[in-house]
């Protein structure tokens, strides 16, 4: 039986560097809660563990969805014989997973009472139907060929209505799913103990029944030194994020230092599916708009910004230059694309001179109409952001532009950004699903006030984006994405900077580890071969 597959003596010990917020899929938005949710709940679809780029495969669905009506209707059959983990909410009965559970679970994201942070992913749903016990039919408001990724999203797992209703406000601490693990012990913000779900369906991968391990013990350790020492002492088996001490265990070329390699420790280094960028407010009266002077100003600023210094000093070498808005590992990424905007302060100065941004007696440039020119960079009052402030100061000084630093609290910056009231700010976006659309929508005009933080409205970009929405991943869509990226670069709405490395350290006995671009955990597949 499946329960025999999991060896109860094999307990994986890992850490989170920040506390979770809970395990009710509609109520969370943080990475760590999502990680545990992924282990407990089952979405209809998932990703092949080994395939790169990420590839959708059925999970609790019998097969991939049947897509009809030009991408407006998705029909999926749920495998019979899958059961929720035993729970008092089911009053002693075995509770089989049905299509109605997915209808209920997806519907919860649309229920305004839940004000789910991830409601935006499900806003395209017009109607959810269950023609029979195992069939789910989702009708969308418009064609969407990427909706399969939403069905594979970590938070799209099935919850049971009885459990949600039984636990009410406590649902975040009482997760009941059909996944490979179930919650055994939970001390909020401190310790999360999962055990292999004894009722987990029979699942075989590469000749092995899953899961291999009997449980996962997660300790919340905010401090890098504690995580690093605990890992070195062998108190933990995997360490997911040690960027601050990367130079202690890694050589400059990204390989593990010999003293660690000799001990059998393994390093898995990958680039996170994210982009980090600066956006200009395209509605701002100083830097915004599509006139030649404004484009020249933004282009000159982009040419003066020291991206390599950002990677070397602020990231301590733990990032790669991002040239394309779609990061590696995400469908649509173009590894050959190179930014057309080089680091060239001399050319930037010449460009500003040409477009009438003349230097005044104080050595700083003025606008073509003679008014004072100052770039207002918004950041939070944190140590890391102070480093960005200093880098911007040096960059803008090199082209004679005065910098003003605007400090505010994070929520206030978000608010001002949604209201198109900032001038220049840094932003980061990590993939919700491994498809380029998740990134290219960040520049789509109608998303202004939501994900389009720079309030960028370009007819050339928007027209191509709307076309791309109707295409499946492939060469034709990739061509559109390249054109859109060039349009964005020519109009210089963003300064794309970098994507960070994720350096995962593994003890010698941890087997089957392969960092997936979007799946949070590998726990289902891991083995401990002590």
């Amino acid at each position, binding site marked *: 039986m499946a329960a025999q597959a999991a060896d109860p003596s094999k307990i994986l010990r890992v850490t989170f560097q920040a506390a979770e917020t809970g395990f009710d899929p509609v109520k969370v938005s943080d990475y760590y809660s999502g990680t545990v949710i992924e282990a407990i709940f089952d979405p209809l679809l998932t990703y092949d563990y080994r395939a790169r780029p990420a590839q959708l495969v059925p999970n609790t669905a019998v097969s991939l969805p049947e897509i009809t009506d030009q991408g407006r209707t998705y029909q999926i059959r749920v495998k019979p014989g899958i059961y929720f983990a035993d729970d008092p909410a089911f009053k002693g009965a075995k509770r089989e997973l049905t299509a109605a559970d997915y209808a209920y679970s997806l519907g919860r994201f649309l229920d305004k009472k839940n*004000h789910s942070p991830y409601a935006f992913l499900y806003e395209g749903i017009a109607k959810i139907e269950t023609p029979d016990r195992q069939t789910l039919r989702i009708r969308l408001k418009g064609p969407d060929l990427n909706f399969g990724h939403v069905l594979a999203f970590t938070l799209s797992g099935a919850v049971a209505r009885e459990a949600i209703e039984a636990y009410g406000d406590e649902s975040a601490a009482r997760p009941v799913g059909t996944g490979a693990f179930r919650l055994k012990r939970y*001390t909020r913000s401190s310790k999360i103990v999962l055990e292999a779900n004894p009722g987990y369906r029979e699942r075989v991968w590469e000749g092995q029944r899953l899961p291999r391990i009997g449980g996962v013990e997660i300790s919340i350790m905010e401090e890098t030194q504690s995580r690093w020492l605990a890992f070195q002492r062998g108190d933990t088996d995997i360490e997911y994020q040690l960027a601050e001490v990367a130079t202690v265990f890694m050589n400059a070329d990204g390989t593990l230092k010999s003293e660690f390699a000799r001990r059998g420790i393994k390093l898995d280094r990958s680039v996170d599916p994210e982009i980090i960028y600066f956006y200009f407010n395209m509605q701002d009266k100083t830097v915004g708009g599509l006139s030649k002077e404004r484009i020249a100003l933004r282009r000159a600023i982009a040419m003066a910004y020291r991206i390599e210094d950002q990677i070397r000093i602020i990231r301590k070498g733990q990032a790669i230059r991002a040239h394309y808005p779609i990061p590696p590992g995400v469908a649509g990424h173009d590894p050959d694309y190179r930014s057309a905007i080089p680091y060239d302060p001399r050319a930037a100065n010449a460009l500003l001179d040409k477009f009438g941004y003349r230097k005044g007696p104080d050595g700083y440039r003025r606008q073509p109409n003679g008014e004072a020119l100052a770039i207002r960079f918004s950041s939070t009052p944190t140590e890391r952001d102070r480093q960005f402030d200093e880098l911007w100061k040096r960059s803008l000084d090199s082209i004679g532009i005065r910098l003003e630093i605007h400090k505010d609290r994070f929520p206030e910056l978000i608010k001002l950004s949604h209201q198109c009231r900032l001038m220049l700010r840094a932003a980061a976006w990590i993939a919700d699903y491994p498809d380029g659309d998740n990134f290219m929508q960040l520049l789509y005009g109608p998303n202004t006030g939501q994900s389009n933080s720079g309030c960028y409205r370009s007819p050339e970009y928007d027209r191509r984006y709307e076309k791309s929405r109707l295409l499946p991943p492939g060469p034709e869509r990739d061509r559109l994405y390249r054109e859109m990226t060039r349009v964005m670069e020519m109009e210089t709405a963003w300064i794309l900077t970098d994507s960070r490395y994720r350096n995962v350290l593994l003890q010698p006995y941890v087997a089957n580890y392969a960092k997936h671009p979007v799946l949070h955990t590998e726990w289902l597949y891991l083995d401990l071969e002590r």
Partner: protein
Amino acid sequence: MSDNFFIRRLWQTVPTLLGVVLLVFVLFNWVGGDPAYLLAGKIPNPEQIENIRRSLGVDQPYWMQLWIFVKQVASADFGASWSTNEQVSQIFATRLGPSLTVLLPLLLISTFIALAAGMLVAYWRGSLTDRAIMVGCTVAQSVSILVYILVFQYLLAYQLGWFPVQGWGGNLAENLLRYAALPILVGVVVSLAPDIRLYRSFFLDEIGQDYVRTARAKGLSEPRVLWLHVLRNAAIPIVTNVLIQLPGLLAGAFLIERFFSIPGIGREVILAVERSDFPVIKAVTVYVAVATLAINLLSDVLYKLLDPRVQLK
């Protein structure tokens, strides 16, 4: 001890608490930012933002929000955490135990050692030992607690393996004897230097008094003079110092709790600040204020017990 004293002191807590409430409210609304934008996720729309603001009650006029806060203080019910939905009372109930497991032994041990050391250096005033200890205390006091934590954790736990690097178990004995030992040691070492200096000055004030000379003239042994007569007379400022540390320690031990993964109140407070979790911030501020007021009252009562000459009016 008159009843009037207690009634008057209890009445005095009302304006103090109102002041705390007002200060917290103004500070949070000034510094905290709009929590709806934190809770709304990656792509919020205006309708969702408004929904969240409504559900949190931050769409109400300020005077109404302040009134709700006052009612929460009066009923000791601060509702649920904005980020985890856990009842604030539950948060404190579950985090208090681990905090006290570290802080009570820490306070007892550090007080006892600091008393003994303070008394000895006061007794040897001006000697090489006194000067060496005072220089040592000044140096030790100049070092940040963060340095103590980093060095002790690295050296004693990681290098020598005398303690676990971090962690917290399921029962009191395991926690007290295994996981809390190093955090307690760090806490004791950090608090010793300032306490020894302070207690030394208290003892010096007393050692020169006439009653000490009289006791010695009567032939009492030096330990008896010091531990009975001097200590008792120096006890009032010592008790004040020990008690007044308690509420601050509870919320202020966040560094120790974070580095050693102790699920205590200090760590929870930092988490709440990071998440702009106003219900938790409100509760902890009010609890600390109430605890401070209660401890002040307790100190007054203890003064009377320690020194019958003290009149509580």
